[in-house]
């Protein structure tokens, strides 16, 4: 059987499974729709949280990113797991005890203010849509490469599936499909990693192979990789390029941002008790750690394999994956020294970085480029980092079914996260904006209908993002985490741990954090991208890490304004006392 046929079978089978689960777990009340009836087992919720959290970025992009960043890539590994410690210790049990439906719900009631609630909804929608755009790009890449359909068709199929189970099943449907999606995605991630680990180091467990010697040699993989990367003009793989303060701030922004992401927090509203919420956070992190400790091993294997399989190879005999990805436009080769061989080294091969292709073919059969060569270095290839995980099994020449499995896993990761995001968007619209603010007279049944309509509209908008991907998608990932860290985390944390915080303090804090972080990122990413370098950054902190400073600003504003304004009413003190009890 061809790889493509296998891919169709795997993807088709998993999609059928998701639809089956959706039919079995339909939502009948708003309680079902928003929080899955609050009776999800902590273990199941742990898996669902892991799938919800691990997006196309974790599955497809992260290992590739780390493969090229080396030790600097550690910020993603620590940042995207360490946030769960904060979530488990500081937020999840208390928010579960509060026991309502959404994150703006808590902010609105704790700060006794509709303005605070609306501000929270705005932040939530902005953060969630930023995130969804990335998921849809992931779906598009998988479909166009492995099923050889048009990206738009791929996005529409993906939308239809999500529409079916999110609109029908709400949180309940999403929870149980996410459990299935976790199983698919983790299996799909581990199988190729184990294969490659055995091939390269003889160790079955990738986490151990990562630190072992290469097959038939006494040299450790990481030492060899350090040597090879240095020889090609890169910094050694296990050394940092970024400054310590920048690494510190990016890690902090990702951690606090993770703890403040509404679609993750809301998962802890679905378990039966406070104890279950704590446990569930532990299970979730185990399931996440399984992928996150494998990813850096995959990165090191992939970087090594990549260099081995193309360096100084004639283009005419280069491996087929190289040409396949070139056809899609995610790899490009410019034969700067006219020797017909591929040379890979540090620096951007092309002026303007991204390739734009001509219709013509070169003498070796490669796609010719419009770009001028970048003559300041010898590097001849452009590789999009997003392809590493998908290309890895092909680079290592694994069997076709493994490649098909990875395609199904990538789709599971993207769809599960998209569904979780769509749900928090729709519930914040139907519950926080309509029921709690503008249309308090609607019945539960009407509210449920509005929730479904909001979910459908949100899917439509997400689909448009997928079909016409805004050019800034990759640029704004920092946004989602920076904003969550600078707005939600302080408001939620102080809401629980500092009773005296009043609405004036919380609202000013969130607004200040939001405006500061957003302007800093917009200034360096869009208005003045030319000076986006460490010389002009504030204290040497990049836009990716600025959420950390935004968060400190939020804390400072909240606390100082609170002291000079009226304390919150007695009901709020009682409510906080109440959520502090198990």
């Amino acid at each position: 059987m061809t790889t493509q046929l296998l891919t169709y079978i795997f993807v088709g089978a998993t999609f059928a499974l998701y639809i089956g689960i959706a039919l079995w777990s339909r939502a009948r009340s708003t309680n079902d729709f928003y929080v899955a009836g609050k009776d999800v087992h902590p273990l199941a919720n742990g898996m669902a949280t892991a799938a919800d959290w691990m997006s196309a970025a974790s599955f497809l992009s992260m290992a590739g990113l780390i493969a090229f960043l080396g030790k600097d890539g550690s910020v993603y590994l620590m940042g995207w797991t360490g946030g769960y410690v904060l979530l488990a210790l500081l937020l999840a049990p208390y928010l579960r005890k509060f026991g309502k439906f959404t994150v703006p719900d808590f902010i609105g009631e704790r700060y006794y203010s509709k303005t605070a609630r609306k501000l929270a909804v705005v932040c939530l929608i902005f953060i969630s849509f930023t995130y969804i755009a990335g998921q849809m790009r992931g779906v598009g890449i998988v479909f166009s490469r492995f099923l050889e359909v048009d990206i738009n068709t791929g996005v529409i199929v993906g939308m239809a599936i999500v529409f079916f189970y999110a609109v029908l099943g709400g949180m309940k449907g999403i929870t149980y499909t996410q459990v299935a999606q976790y199983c698919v995605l983790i299996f799909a991630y581990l199988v190729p990693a184990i294969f490659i680990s055995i091939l390269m180091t003889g160790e079955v467990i990738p986490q151990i192979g990562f630190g072992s010697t290469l097959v038939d040699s006494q040299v450790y993989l990481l030492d060899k990789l350090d040597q090879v990367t240095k020889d090609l003009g890169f910094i050694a793989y296990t050394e940092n390029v970024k400054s310590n303060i920048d690494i510190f701030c990016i890690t902090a922004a990702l951690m606090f941002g993770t703890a403040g992401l509404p679609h993750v927090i809301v998962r802890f509203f679905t378990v039966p008790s406070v104890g279950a919420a704590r446990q569930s956070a532990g299970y979730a992190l185990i399931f996440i750690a399984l992928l996150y400790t494998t990813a850096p091993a995959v990165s090191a294997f992939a970087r090594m394999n990549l260099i081995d399989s193309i360096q100084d190879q004639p283009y005419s005999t280069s491996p087929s994956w190289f040409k396949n990805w070139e056809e899609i436009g995610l790899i490009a080769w410019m034969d700067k020294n006219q020797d017909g061989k591929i040379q890979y080294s540090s620096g951007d091969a092309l002026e303007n970085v991204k390739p734009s292709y001509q219709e013509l073919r070169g003498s070796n059969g490669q796609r010719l480029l419009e770009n001028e060569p970048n003559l300041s270095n010898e590097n001849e290839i452009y590789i999009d980092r997003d392809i590493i995980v998908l290309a890895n099994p092909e680079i290592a020449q694994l069997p076709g079914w493994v490649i098909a499995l990875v395609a199904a896993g990538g789709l599971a990761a993207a769809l599960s996260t998209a569904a979780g995001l769509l749900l928090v968007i729709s519930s914040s619209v139907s519950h926080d904006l309509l029921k709690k603010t503008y249309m308090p007279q609607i019945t539960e049944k009407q509210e449920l209908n509005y929730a479904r309509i909001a979910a459908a509209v949100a899917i439509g908008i997400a689909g448009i993002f997928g079909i016409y991907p805004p050019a800034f998608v990759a640029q704004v990932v920092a946004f989602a985490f920076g904003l969550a860290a600078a707005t939600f985390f302080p408001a939620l944390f102080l809401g629980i741990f500092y009773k005296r915080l009043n609405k004036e303090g919380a609202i000013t804090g969130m607004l200040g954090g939001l405006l500061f972080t957003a302007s800093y990122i917009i200034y360096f990413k869009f208005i003045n991208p030319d000076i986006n370098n460490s010389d002009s950054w504030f204290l040497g902190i990049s836009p990716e890490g600025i959420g950390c400073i935004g968060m400190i600003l939020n804390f400072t504003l909240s606390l100082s304004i609170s002291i000079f304004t009226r304390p919150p009413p007695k009901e709020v003190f009682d409510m906080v006392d109440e959520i502090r009890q198990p």
Partner: protein
Amino acid sequence: MKDKTQQYWKANLKIVLSLLVIWFIASFGFGIIFSDTLDQIRLGGFKLGFWFAQQGSIYIFVIIIFLYVWLMKRLDKKLSEEEK
């Protein structure tokens, strides 16, 4: 009653704070600030600082959460026994 709940809250804060200290040392400490120094030491094929940044910190995070679950369960039990 008021006293009991205040004691409970204080004990809770103590647990959370001590675990967060471990959290900070494992990630920001070993993984970032002292990472280059730790790199002098080797753990098989890994430099120790690199290992903490890409593997060790994550294992410690998992342990912290389960420690928290266990300590809080004990504390909750104590509270409910005292209330009887």
